């Protein structure tokens, strides 16, 4: 199994729901808490597993705004794992989820240095590295209703821009989306083989237009319409004029 996410840039409106949902779930989840520093002060910050950024492609007036949620890509070739000296970072054999065993981490940050996607954040207060768990504590929790055994970011996304599934299964929704919509990886040239894929904005063909009917000036147009309604009326055979 190769579990991961597909994120649809065609529908993501950048609302941050997935990011906050992630924070909410995971702060009481397996790698919680997700510490917040200076929460009511000058520099509020904290540990997040998923962050949303907005970019602009091209220039006014042709610019297009792109919202990019980014969390761990659960890379196939995850250097964050290979560099980890303690074995705290690992990629699960059974499903490819990349995790940090909180009890083993020494907080050296090397994995974060190795990650191109900014997916790992040190919990400075606890001294351990944290990251997206792919909601491993939900997707396998058999006490949750079946349709809730999904990452919360996927469940909460109001534009359904997020999909979770098994990329090893060619028939899964994620696989077919990637196939059909040209799903791509971010920064592929680094060779991490990210499992998570992004669907590019859809390109709509130009819409058909009603053909023009050059009807002339307003007086003549209204005159034409008056005539038309009269003709229509006459054609009913009821016209007396």
């Amino acid at each position: 199994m190769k579990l991961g996410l597909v994120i649809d840039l065609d529908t993501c409106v950048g609302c941050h729901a997935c990011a906050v949902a992630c924070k909410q779930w995971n702060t009481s989840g397996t790698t919680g808490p997700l510490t917040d520093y200076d929460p009511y002060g000058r520099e509020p910050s904290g540990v997040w597993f998923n962050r949303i950024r907005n970019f602009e492609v091209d220039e006014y007036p042709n610019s297009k705004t792109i919202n990019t949620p980014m969390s761990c890509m659960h890379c196939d070739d995850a250097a964050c794992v290979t560099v980890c000296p303690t074995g705290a970072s690992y990629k699960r054999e059974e499903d490819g989820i990349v995790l940090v065993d909180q009890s083993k981490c020494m907080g050296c940050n090397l994995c974060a240095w190795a990650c191109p996607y900014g997916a790992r954040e040190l919990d400075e207060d606890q001294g351990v590295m944290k990251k997206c768990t792919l909601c491993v504590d939900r997707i396998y929790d058999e006490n949750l209703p079946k349709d809730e055994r999904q990452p919360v970011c996927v469940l909460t996304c109001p534009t359904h821009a997020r999909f979770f599934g098994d990329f090893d299964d060619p028939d899964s929704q994620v696989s077919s989306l990637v196939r059909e919509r040209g799903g791509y990886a971010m920064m592929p040239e680094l060779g991490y083989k990210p499992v998570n894929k992004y669907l590019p904005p859809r390109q709509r063909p130009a819409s058909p237009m009603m053909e023009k009917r050059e009807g002339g000036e307003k007086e003549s147009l209204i005159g034409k319409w008056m005539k038309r309604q009269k003709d229509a009326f006459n054609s009913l055979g009821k016209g007396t004029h």
Partner: protein
Amino acid sequence: MSVLPEFENHAEQTVKMTTCYMCACRCGIKVTMEGNEIRFIQGNPRHPVNKGVLCAKGNAGIMKQKSPAKLTQPLVRKAGTERGAGEFEPISWDKALDLLTERLRKIRSTDPKRLAFFTGRDQMQALTGFWASQFGTINWAAHGGFCSVNMAAGGLYMTGQSFWEFGDPDWDHAKYFMLWGVAEDHASNPIKIGLEKLKRRGAKFVAINPVRTGYQAIADEWIGIRPGTDGLLALSFAHVLLKHEQFDWDFLVRYTNSTQLVIDAPDTSRNGLLLRNESGELQVWDQASDSPASWTDSSHDNDIQAALFGEYLTDEGVRVKTVMTLLAEKYLSDEYAPENVAAITGVDADTIERLALEMAHVAFRETITIDTPWTDWTGRRHDKFVGRPVAMHAMRGISAHSNGFQSCRSIHLLQVLLGAVDCPGSHLAKPPFPKHIAPPIKPAWAMAPDTPLSSPPLGFPMAPEDLVIDHDGVPLRIDKAYSWEAPLANHGMMHMVITNAVKGDPYPIDTLILFMANMSWNSSMNTAEIQEMLRMKDEHGGYKLPFIVTSDAFHSEMVNYSDLVLPDTTYLERFDTISMLDRPISEPHAACDAIRQPVLEPDRDVRPWQEVLVDIGARLGFPALTRPDGEPKFKDYKDFIINWEKAPGIGFLAGWRGENGEQSMVGAPNQDQWQAYQDNDCFFEQHLPAGQRYYRFANKDYLEWASQVGFNAHSGPIVMELYSEVLQKFRLAGQGLYDGPKPVRQEDKQRLVQYFDPLPDWYVPLEEQRVDNEQYHFHAVNQRPMFMYHSWDSQNAWLRQIMAQNYLYMNRARGKGMGIKDLDWVWVESHHGRIRCQAKLMEGCNPDTVWTWNAIGKQSGTWGLSEDAPESQKGFLMNHLISELLPAQEGEHSLSNSDPVTGQAAWYDLKVNVYPAAPGETGLYPTFATVKRLPDMPPSPEVLHYHTHTPVNLERSMQDALSRGHLAGGDEP
């Protein structure tokens, strides 16, 4: 697969459903509790509004509950200290309510209008409005006037349904969607759910907005319009449609007043009114008899052939034209031709023409049908619903301008021309809408001591007679709603209350109660001066606004300016109703309402405001709340909700009525009603039968049902008024020709003549008409961030990490040309004042527009934030630049900065000048004194480790750590 540990003990968790109130969208939520702590808040998949999804705010509910800014006890301003100085003393609830009741009793028994009760982001207007009526003051309104009454009024006076939260695009069928001036709207989650549906189906999404963020980011086409010109763009679309003969002839004839006859009798009191026969029936021109006939008869009788176009002379010698003729004459004129509109709107002529013809193509060539038989109001059977799948939605980008009412009508006009109203694929009404034009409720004006009002404070004037003014034309309401200055101010004019009350214009008041409104900060225009007004004293040393009571749940800026603070519960701590008598949470095809139930116990000395209202009402002896012996009629709020009936069988909640809960919509009170709601995830949903889902303005079965359940007063058709006789009556009054009340002030006359065009019209927004546009070149507007709700969410430790400071955004090339770089400090100056803030450049911004996120700026010391929080040190409000009054003109009374028709606050008319601050000139301007902390307020924590149980770590076995040579899954070469 390896065996996973049990991550959490579900047996120790409890799950409760309730309704979110992190914003007014009112999604269904499922809250998982561990003890008295919230483990998780998620969307309820069954809920009609959000269908399981949840927005960023909703997901941050835990941090609202944990907010250090929560009020903990009733407070009274310390005797001898100044208002606004922030010196408060705790007071017990008993004493607080005694004190308040005494004061209110005096007011009520002498001059009830001296109590003004205004509510902001209130979602229980049915309750607060009821309370004000029972008290007997007309000085009540909710946020609508400063929010989006233009959308409500624009729609309700024209099509009987409207944008805002009163309708939805048909996300399942629309093939073309045009979004006008919307950043987020109240339907936060539904719009997002809908946009994805559209895109999945391949519909085209066109966004008209000066700024390309949020929803506009995913639009297929972005039209970066110049603010305030949408009405003109819409009318130019109409021009193109007419010019190329693209309009739905049958739709117009059947469902609108386009065949009705407008009297052409210049300089008479009949001019511009609709022709009626002796019995008052509206007339059309029958081609068969070549004479007027009743519109109603023409609809029923195939032998009457109503003319859509034409100019006629009646036997009595009255010259008449059909509405459609007037309409075509108006919009076909060159004024609306794309090439003449392009320069004003900033949208090029080809694009205007193309978009109009694209819509026409979808409406008329890509027509859809739903094969469900239905019957129209005349009894005619139809075997299917025909859909013109062009949908539109519009909000504050349209409404928050002083031409918003007419602009909104212009958009509706487009929909009507395309036949795209409440049909499959178009904009659909949500029950209880559509309503007759306009709903038959007139605003109350008469008051008497100790007497409830005989009608609600707010209603729908249909003629100058319905204005709430005295014989001399002086406004009777403190906000001057329904006066000549704003005749159709259907939601009141909350933004004027403080200014008017302090000036004593039209009269001074005694007590102002504010509920859920941050009026000393982000919901007032001209904030700095409003704060001064709140401190202003008369010659006797008393406050000009003598007593201010605030119901708030948090330490807001308004709390600081209150004399009595009544702390409310949070949304997770109370029972509440989201009533169909109020703002609907219905879906287009289902009538819905909902409740809230407490999921945790308050840990402070707070009370739900709804309980407090019912309690005070009983103490004051409101007839609806007390028995003849003076004892309270109802035990508490819940009891009241169950048993109070607006009309027989109709109460706040529509579900599970009848003694045994077997009736819906109408039925006797059911003592187990709350439980029934709780058992059904806290909502009620009644689906409409398939044959009643579209064309409801003319759908016989729907109309009959709607009148049975009390939505509408009768089951007659709702005839769309492209031509508004109501407006014409006011215009006649302005011209001095009306047979009835007429204004005396010159400015009122002029405004009625100029802006009350009975056909949708466009004019330059009022501030823009009055300021030097060379100097104040830029338009300045706001947007809602999707993850913050007005002022509420800066206290939220998670949400403020996303944004704790706002910037002034502007077009990159434009800013660069002015020598402005990212993060530079700039001055922004309006006719009213100036602010200094930091700029950011971006591509997706109309070059003549600057904008910022709304309500991020805070007053230092409030909301549980540290004094140096970025919200108060760098975040700013545009409100300081916006005057509540229009720039004065010679010989004129002061006029509010509002739409002249509806009184809607014209937030987005703002024109500004932007220039770089001088070197060394940095930092926010203006700044405000730091607000004192409240007594007993605990210090805000310096670090948070929120979690509800010890985390169960997923251990990697040592063996695995030692043995795995390389990565699993990684197919290393």
